[in-house]
């Protein structure tokens, strides 16, 4: 059995969270609230690190005065707490949404659309031909504007089956990923903490 206080704390937190599988109880709630508090605190510390390294240091140490703009915009976000001037917070939100939209649209057009098409139409092997057929079939299932009739109606049907295979694979992968984490936690409890397993 470990004599390390950190291992004991980690072991107790692990057991407290796993106890929720049985039913909600005070030990779980203590661990849950500690987890949320420490996560939020960690996020704030990381955010402060970003502000300090990206904006404050270049502004104060190198005289890059343009960094005043995002700092002021960031502070303006807190205007939402003051009635009467809460609308000012819309400006930094608009800047953030603009940046996010620009990045998302560029990524969507380039990475999620054109690159996916160019990767799909490169056919050489049987598997690549199957991949092309499956992608077209799946896309045809999303095509709601016009009903496909006659022999073509089997294409969206094939697409539906392909999508079910994809969902099944995603489900299987997710379950196995979570199982791997669970095995890791059980190994920690029985091995690192209690020392009953090597």
């Amino acid at each position, binding site marked *: 059995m470990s004599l390390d206080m950190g291992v004991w704390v980690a072991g107790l937190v692990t057991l407290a969270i796993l106890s929720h599988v049985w039913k909600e109880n005070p030990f779980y709630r203590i661990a849950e609230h500690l987890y949320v508090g420490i996560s939020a605190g960690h996020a704030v510390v990381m955010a402060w690190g970003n502000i300090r390294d990206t904006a404050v240091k270049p502004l104060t140490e190198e005289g890059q005065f343009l960094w005043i703009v995002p700092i002021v915009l960031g502070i303006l976000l807190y205007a939402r707490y003051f009635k009467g001037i809460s609308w000012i917070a819309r400006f930094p939100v608009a800047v953030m949404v603009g940046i996010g*939209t620009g990045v998302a649209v560029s990524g969507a057009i380039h990475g999620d659309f054109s690159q996916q098409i160019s990767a799909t139409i490169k056919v050489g092997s049987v598997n690549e031909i199957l991949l092309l057929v499956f992608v077209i079939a799946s896309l045809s299932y999303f095509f709601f504007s016009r009903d496909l009739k006659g022999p073509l109606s089997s294409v969206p049907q094939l697409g539906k089956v392909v999508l079910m295979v994809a969902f099944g694979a995603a489900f299987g992968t997710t379950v196995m990923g979570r199982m791997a984490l669970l095995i890791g936690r059980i190994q920690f409890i029985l091995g690192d903490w209690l020392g009953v397993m090597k």
Partner: protein
Amino acid sequence: MKTSLPVAIMTVIALLIILDFFVVDSASVQWIKQSGLVLRSWGIVISAFAMGLGAVNLLRRHVVAISRRETDAFYSILLVGSMIVMIVVGIASGSTSPVYDFLFSNILSPASATMYASIAFYIVTAAYRSFSARSLESWVLLLTAVIVMLGKAPIGAAISGIFPVASDWIESIPNTAGMRAIMMGAALGVVSNAIKMFLGLDRTYLGLRD
């Protein structure tokens, strides 16, 4: 001014970043490249301030619960206390200090891993309750999930060598095809939603309902 100016700012910034991505790097469009770079780094700073906004909201909610002495106030005290300790230690001594490292390694990290691990139980029980193999599609989904799970576990390979091979094939061909189609559909959705925002038809991000 209170509504149309933020929409205009959002549109100009988004278009600049899109242009920055697609224009060829040359001296005549250097200002677009430079603006895109500056705006993206501004985004990091403003998002960091927004993170603080989330923390303030969380604090407000729990401080109110403590001051009203609600039944669960004890848990709120734990949350607020742990959050303040983490922030004070992290900002005063840095994220490499022993206290910060203790809280991170022995509470945050194991709690996070256990939270994700415990989801395994809920996924499986939810699947048991909701999956009913009544149609071809649901049979396909169930069978695929079972093959992939057996393919990834040592027991699958012990039963038959087919499971790892079939699992790999499913993941690399039909799974890739399905996910690729979903990705393309989502990309079109992103673009169409962006156009709605540029035209001022979607202003929900400003807290406005149209």
